[in-house]
């Protein structure tokens, strides 16, 4: 069974009190999975859910080269690719996996799913309020993700959400988040442009506590991990949040654009040195990029993907499922 919303969120004490949301119908899931790689308005050749047939037509020397090529093209990176291919090759050669297309394909999915599950854990929303901090490089989809997340939490779980417009730098950033807040039915806390991001976060948590809201999601300005002073600023925002509420933020997510190459690994590494990154939101998976860099992130840093973004509307957010991801990674 693919990962459900219930599984990806740890709602703490709230969990039992809420009515169980309807488990997703197989139809809807297939439809959504299909949407992962194709949408009505995009003209594409019909995609199958199966891994490209040509990869495992025959099992010979070229199989491993083709597999290597497929994984590199998916941005898995040379080290992770080498690891996965060597492992599978060895298992086939030793006879642990029989040398036929189906068996090898299935085993590959298993291995990839395993790698993608590194550090796997739910999103901690047990806090009262639960505070979630969104970080990442410019343009990766933080604000849009927050809008979608807020919508899901309020729609699927009936939670009250407060959004903190702590991106006080980008032109019209607060206006952008305000639009999402309106769509998602969440409250917005903001300051004047150029204000202190920490202060906005602080105020938002305070407001949420005062009103008894369930979740606070803090948006931050996009920043490159190479900008030391901006990474310091992020550490400071985190500290300020903790001043308002000692365990907060309970969850810090980094948004990684699926089109990102090997730099994604650096991003995750440096950001987690500044703030404790608990998970990745892999965005823009509705494109042709496969987001294979998350394999390296999970493998080398133990930071798991928790959510995936598949478009620009409110509904385009899904819990990350390692097996689904593994299959999509190698499909054409």
């Amino acid at each position, binding site marked *: 069974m693919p990962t459900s919303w219930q599984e990806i969120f740890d709602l703490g004490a709230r969990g039992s009190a809420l009515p169980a949301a309807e488990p997703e119908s197989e139809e809807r899931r297939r439809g959504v999975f299909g949407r992962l790689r194709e949408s009505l308005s995009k003209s594409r050749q019909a995609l199958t859910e199966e891994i490209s047939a040509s990869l495992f037509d025959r099992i010979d020397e070229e199989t491993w080269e083709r597999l290597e090529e497929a994984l*590199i093209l998916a941005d898995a990176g040379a080290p992770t690719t080498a690891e996965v291919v060597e492992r599978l090759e060895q298992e086939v050669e030793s006879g642990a996996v029989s040398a036929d297309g189906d068996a090898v394909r299935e085993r590959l999915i298993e291995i990839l799913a395993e790698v993608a599950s590194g550090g796997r854990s739910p999103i901690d929303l047990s806090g009262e309020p639960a505070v979630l901090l969104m970080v990442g490089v410019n*343009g990766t*989809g933080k604000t849009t993700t927050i809008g979608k997340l807020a919508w899901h939490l309020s729609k699927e779980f009936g939670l009250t959400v407060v959004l903190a417009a702590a991106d006080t730098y980008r032109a019209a950033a607060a206006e952008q988040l305000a639009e999402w807040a309106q769509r998602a039915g969440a409250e917005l806390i903001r300051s004047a442009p150029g204000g202190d991001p920490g202060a906005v976060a602080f105020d938002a948590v305070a407001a949420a506590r005062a009103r008894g809201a369930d979740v606070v999601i803090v948006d931050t300005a996009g920043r490159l991990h190479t900008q030391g002073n901006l990474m310091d600023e992020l550490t400071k925002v985190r500290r300020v949040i903790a001043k308002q509420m000692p365990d907060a933020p309970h969850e810090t997510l980094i948004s990684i654009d699926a*089109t990102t190459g090997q730099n994604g690994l650096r991003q995750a590494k440096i950001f987690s040195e500044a703030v404790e990154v608990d998970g990745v939101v892999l965005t823009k998976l509705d494109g042709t990029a496969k987001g294979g860099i998350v394999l390296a992130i999970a493998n080398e840093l133990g930071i798991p993907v928790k959510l995936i973004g598949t478009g620009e509307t409110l509904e385009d957010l899904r819990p990350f499922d390692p097996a689904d991801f593994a299959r999509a990674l190698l499909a054409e």
Partner: protein
Amino acid sequence: MFDQLSDRLQATLSDVRSRGKLNEGDVDAAMREIRLALLEADVNFKVVKTFTKTLKERCLGADVLESLDPGQQVVKIVNEELTGLMGGTGRDLAFASNGPTVILMAGLQGSGKTTACAKLARHLGESGKTVALAACDVYRPAAVDQLVTVGKRAGAAVYEQGTDADPVEIAAWALDRAREEERDVLIVDTAGRLHIDADLMDELAKIRKRTKPHDVLLVVDAMTGQDAVGVAESFAEVAEFDGVVMTKLDGDARGGAALSVKAVTGKPILFASTGEKLEAFDRFHPDRMASRILGMGDMLSLIEKAEQQVDERQTEDLQKKLESDRFTLEDFLQQMRQVRKMGPLSGLIGMLPGMGAMKQLKNADVDEGELDRVEAIILSMTPLERANPAIIKGSRRKRIAHGSGTKIQQVNQLVKQFDQMRKMMRQMMSGNAPDPQQLAQMAGSAPRPKYRRR
């Protein structure tokens, strides 16, 4: 450690020097390392394959120079090939002979189009052109607001019709307006779109048809991985872009996408965006990108060291000059040019001789435009003036300012900063640590505060 490509290559080719020539086995081994380095840099897998094939041919039979070890020699060849691939026949921006020049900006979501629009507007405005921006992104929340704000900052007019109008109509209307108001340039900002989104790609084609742009620019994020090729090919087909703007180059992504896009579409990278400030926008330098892709950002890479051996005498002379205060603006110009040749400035300025790797300077954003100005000013000086800046007063200042297309204040500032720098170098020669504030002041025209001020 074997981080540097040249280190790794050297380890692989360790016994070549004695043989004096690279044989096929050597070259294959070298190609493996290069392939890895390029993949690490996000160059597309297929582009790497083609590239290493060409490279292999060049390397086979290449003579090993005396001053360079085989690893360095191979890297030198790779560097040259990459530079050639990314440079060569490109074109500059095309301008209209009458009426407004229309520049259409396109790209994926989050690539940095809107910021790039404002930067380009400012860049063109600097050369005296009047610029207008058309807000054709009606989908992304507050996109229009964003363009209005940054457009204003860039000194450009912004034509918008909110989010209820059709982007194609907005573009057409904006062009009419630009004509009426006799703007020199109209930059059309569009919504980020997936190359596989038929509807939106269709919209882009329509905007193109209606506005007949003189330049269509594809905005590409420097951290883009293997997907760059697919994106570029699709946009080339539908939007027929003329050139690329590479963004977020102030990060540490190696930027292999630049090579991929050029290799696959033949379209040149025209501009490099190197920060969030509007000024962080420059012409693209293929040689710097080549070094960056190969992971050779450090000026003291082995190749430089090898070439430096030849320059050792010069360096010694330079050192003597600094100590005896005979360091002139001419010397400064030469040093600056050498440094600029080697890579993007931020982080490198601390490597000017005598400075050492000053950490304070790593965060000092250096404005490339500023350095172009400095160069121009020095070039407008006579050799006597460069040797003895103290004589630069009154009419000389005026002449220099006029000759370099700068203001008298800027000439004054340079002379003053140069003086400060000489004092500082003398201090360091005599073993005193320089004042970080002063250092920062030198690197940029204004002191940098501790937190980024925008």
